[in-house]
Structure formats: C-alpha cells, structure tokens
C-alpha cells in the first residue's frame, strides 16, 4: 500500500504555502515529515486529510484517489483535541461511528483499543481527570480507533516522559509493521531518526530533501572523520582540517578542499598503525539544519 502525494500546490491569497510538493509513503515504513515552523507541513497534512482543498495536485492511495479520507486516515493533532468533560468511552464511540462503524462495532472497537493501550479503566472517566501522558494515549487511541490505513501523527511524543514515549513508540511501530502507512511530523530529531526509515524535509512549501534516511546520509558529503591509532597522528590530521580529541581518538573536521581518502593515505604512509578510521555520517539534525536552514536547497 502506497500513498502518493503528487505535485501539490496551495496558496492563501498571495502567500504560496505549497509549491509542487510530492513524495510517496509506503506501508510498514514510517515516514518523517520535517520542516521548520511555517514550512507548510500542517497545510500539507490538512490537504491529505481533505480538510483543505489543494489548488492543484493529487493524493492517491495505490494509484487511486482516496474514496473517503475521513475513514481512511487517523489523525493525531499537535494540539490535543478532546471534549474535556465527556466520558472517554462515549467520545471514542462517537468518533468511531463518525468514521463509519455501526454502534455495536464501535463499542467493541473502543473496548479493544483501550485494552491494547492499557487504559481500559479510563473508559468512564473524563479527559480532564487524566494525566497528560494518559490523555495522549487516549488521543492516539482515538486516531487508531477504526484501524485506518493511514495514520498521521503531529508531534505525538511532545510532553511525554521517556517511558511514555517508549510505550507509544512501540504501539505505533507495531501498527506500521501490520501494514499501515504512518506519517510522522516532529521537531524531535532523535525520535524521528529512531523511528522513521523515510524522510521528507519541506522548506518554504517545497520539498528540499526526501528519500530513505540512510541514502540521504550517504548522499551528504561527510566532512568529519573519527580516527584511533597507536601513536600521535594529530600533526598529520591537522594538515587536513581541525582536530579535536574524542573517545580515545581524534575527530578531524576536514577543511573544504580536503578528502578523507587523502587523509587515510597520509596516515598509512606515516607508518602509524591505524586501529579505527570512520567517516562520521551526518545526523538527521545536521541534515535538517543543512536542508532547512538559510542555505538549504531543493533536491
């Protein structure tokens, strides 16, 4: 199952919010949708969910337009949205029914989902009586109540403690592994790095980076090298760039015109025994800053 976002354009008056955005998200491979505030992520998610209409472009599921985005997509908004004083069970049944379930199936689905999240005892409580972590679980349960084909999560782990984050990660990971499409938006780069295999970075309404995370990392020119050796290699390394000590070795930040292969050749010819030589691949945060910052360019 593949979600195809093709050539989406959207303007609000004179403001161009999205300019030809396109990417694919596959079942089982969570996709990280990244971008700075105002980049156009929320507008794009609203268009996918059919809350907003695009000026042009297509949203396709397995090559066909979505029959009913409201039953096919589950959404967890960044700002939590629950009726504060209504019982959780009633709210979930209401949303399950809006998403196409009959009353009996909705009731069963609520019971099953709350059990899966380990919060079945909250069925008769109101959200205002729950902790933030449990409210977030209820919110995620609501997004997944009808087992939608596509799950869109906007900052799902914000405000959660590490244990709560790990629990929700596990649930979402399982859900993706069961053959669902998961689109994930967050500013917590380590979480996205840990969670998503594919990423799309949007800047000013344009896709500037997209693809498999490892491929993207490999495509980035690496400018840092970690070296361990039996002897002092600082002097040789300094010819190629700035050197700093780290974990019993050195990190050499190569200067613009330097090359890691040339450094390795120099070290080998010096006769020093090299025990570890590793090109440090850029982290997602570095890729994000590089792509989304002032100097980022569309790929």
């Amino acid at each position, binding site marked *: 199952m593949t979600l195809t976002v093709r050539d989406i354009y959207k303007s609000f008056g004179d403001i161009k919010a999205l300019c030809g955005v396109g990417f694919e998200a596959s079942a089982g491979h969570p996709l990280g949708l990244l971008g700075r505030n105002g980049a156009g992520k929320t507008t794009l998610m609203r268009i996918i969910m059919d809350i907003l209409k695009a000026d042009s472009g297509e949203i396709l599921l397995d090559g066909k337009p979505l029959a009913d985005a409201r039953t096919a997509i589950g959404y967890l*908004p960044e700002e939590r949205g629950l009726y504060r004083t209504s019982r959780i069970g009633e709210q979930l049944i*209401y949303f399950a*029914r*809006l998403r196409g379930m009959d009353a009996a199936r909705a009731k069963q689905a609520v019971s099953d989902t709350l059990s899966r999240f380990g919060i079945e005892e909250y069925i008769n409580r109101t959200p205002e009586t729950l902790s933030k972590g449990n409210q977030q679980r209820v919110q995620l349960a609501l997004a997944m109540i009808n087992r939608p084909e596509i799950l869109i999560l906007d900052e799902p782990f914000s405000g959660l403690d590490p244990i709560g984050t790990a629990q929700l990660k596990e649930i979402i990971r399982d859900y993706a592994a069961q053959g669902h499409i998961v689109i994930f938006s967050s500013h917590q780069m380590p979480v996205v790095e840990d969670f998503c295999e594919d990423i799309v970075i949007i800047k000013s309404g344009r896709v500037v980076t997209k693809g498999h995370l490892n491929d993207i990392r490999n495509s980035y020119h690496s400018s840092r090298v970690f070296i361990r050796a039996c002897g002092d290699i600082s002097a040789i390394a300094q010819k190629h760039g700035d050197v700093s000590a780290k974990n019993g070795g050195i990190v050499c930040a190569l200067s613009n015109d330097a090359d890691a292969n040339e450094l390795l050749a120099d070290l080998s010819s010096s006769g020093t025994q090299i025990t570890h030589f590793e090109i440090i691949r850029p982290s997602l945060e570095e890729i994000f800053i590089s792509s989304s910052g002032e100097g980022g360019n569309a790929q």
Partner: protein
Amino acid sequence: MNRFFIVFSRELRETLRSKPFIIISAIMALCLAAIALLPLFGASDGEKNEPVSGADNIYIHNCAVSENSDRETVEKLAEALPYISFSAAVTDDTSQYEALLEKYDAILVVRSAGDYDCYEKLSLGAQSIKYLFDDALTSICRTDSLVQLGVSYADAQSVLSANISGRSFFVGENLFGKMICNYVLVMLMFISIALYGQMVATRVASEKGSRTMELLATSASVRELLYGKVLGVGAAGLIQISVFIVSAVFLLNISSGSGISTIAALAANITAADIVFACAYFILGFLLMAFLFGGLGAMVDQLEDLSGIANIPVYIFMAGYLIAVFSTGSGSVSPLMVFASYFPFWSPVTMFSRMSAENVANWEVIVSLAILLASCLLAARVSVKLYASGMLRYGKAPGIKAILKSINQKKGN
C-alpha cells in the same frame, strides 16, 4: 447523511443533558408552577372576606359618617346600600381620618345628596369605592327632584330603578384574546430563538477552544458537523418549549378548578393555521439565527471571545422584537411593522404581532415564510463558509472585514 444523524443525535443528547438546559428547564417549571398554582394557595388563606352581593365584589363592610353629615341623606344612603353599615359617627376633624381608617373601610362627609366627600385608605392596587356612593346619591337626588315635581316617592323610585334586560354579543374574531396569545407566543419565540441560537454558538466556540473541532473536521464534513449541531440543539429547544406549553396548559387547568378554564377560553382564539404558522416561524427563525451563530462561533478562538461577535445577530433580532412589542401595545399596524413582517430577521416575531392587530391574509404569511426560508438557505451556505474558514483560523478575533472575506472565499481556502 449517516454522519449527520450521528452528530445530530449526539448534539441532541448532550444538549438535553447539559447543565444550562436542565437549569433553565427547572427554573421555567418552577415559575410555571408558581404562576399557575398561586391562586389555589391564595384562595385557601384564613381571611374570610366574602364578596358582598350586589357590590361588584367590592369588600366593604363598615362605613363611618362624620358627625355633621346630613342625617336624612345618610339614612337614604343606608337604605340604598343595605349591605354597608353606616352606624358609626366620627369627628369632623379630617386630620384624624388616617388613624380612623385603620378601623373603617371608608368615612363619608355628607353635606347634601349632591355634595359629599369620601375618605378611603390609600393602598397599593386599591379600587375606589366612591362610585358606589355616586350611584346611590345620584339616585337619591333624582328621586328627591321627582318628589318635588309632584311624583310620589314610590313612583319615583319605581321609575328610577327600572330594570333593563340587555345582553352583549361579540361576533367575529376576538382580537383581544388573540393578541394576548400572540404576545405570549412572540415572547416565547424571541427568548427561545435567541437562547438556543446562542447555545449553538457556545458549543461551536467551546469545540474550537478545546481543539476538538480540528479532529471533528477529520471525521466528518463541515456541512454534516454544522447541520447536525444546529438541528440537534434546535430539536432540544423544540422539545423543551413543547414541554413548557403542555405543562403550562395542564397546570393552569388544575388551578382553574373547573372544566372551562381561562386558558381554554384563550386557546379558543388560536386556530390551527396559527399553530402551523407559529411552528414554521419558530423553526425557520431558529435555523436562520442558529446557522449564523454557528458560523460566527467558529470564527473565535475561545468561548470568552464569543460575546462581542455573537451580539451582532442578537441586536438585529432584538430590533424586531421591540417593533413587535411596541406595535402590539399601540394596537395599530405601521408601515414599519408591515415591512418587518417580511424582513427575515424580524418576521418570526413581528408577523404574529401583526396578526393580532389585524387580519393578515394567508398569502402574506406564506410570502413572508418563503422569504424566511430562502434566507435560511442563504444563512446555511454562509455559515458553512464561515465554519470552514474559522475552524482552522487561530489568533485575534476577526472583525467584520475578516468575516466578509471568509464568506467570499472559495471553497477550501
């Protein structure tokens, strides 16, 4: 359509269970019970003031007469008014009368049959009893005059006390009874439409404030959400009003204590057409206001911001109510009233006032309803645009310019 019914049934259920709804119902029930049953309690209190026969239910027993009053005239007066005691004679000093009136119902200073003073105690809602003495003394004067002209006293009395057997019949429509009924309907309609319309705005604004609206928008279309909400709250309002009317009739029938009650007499002035028109005006008037309130409710971020923006339709609607009330009071139909009975924001309340003041042709009512229906459809379209635009808008409360811009926006913007 199915989603519409899901939203509709939830809104209906939540409105019926909401605290404001329960509180209003309880207060109204207590008020109705108090108004209807108070006469029963009043009738059973310990005081034994029986109405005096022949005195038009005026409660008067003891009448004092000043010492220097014309004795002969007082005697004739006592003869003419046998149910009043004139035995006591009191001082001529009027400064003491206030104290004496604690004891007597009235004090008379009778100089002659054609010249007298009547002192009564001033009290709230008091009915003067002077007309009793006026009638009696006029009769005495005339009898004396006839006697002086040579007619015997018995003949003179016979002539003056000749009884006329006359009956009064009203034919055609009882416009006064109809005016009372219509006035009650107008008031009920105004309160209900404003109240339930605002309830829609409140619910929409609180959904937006709690960010539930964005989640709802991912589960149902704007039309399904807005129409379900408006009709759900409206149905709750209709149920409440029906319960009030049925219980009012029931309670007032109990309080009347007889088969033919005042309510029954008033209700006889309401025709089936009146009931049909009343229902149509209530439903369409509510829909017009509720759609606008729903759209405007989505334009604000928080419930607290609602009062400013929601007052606009309330003020417009209230102008119609004032026209209706003043027109009902004057009993005439002005050109403004005729115009108001066609103007969609005002016609739900003003047409009924017009109907109480004159006979309005059915075609006029139908034209007015058609204009109101067209306005409702337009309001529904406008409110869908406002709702769609407002549900994703956060920040400072919009002004008129921003609202008009939202209405003119293309779908999906």
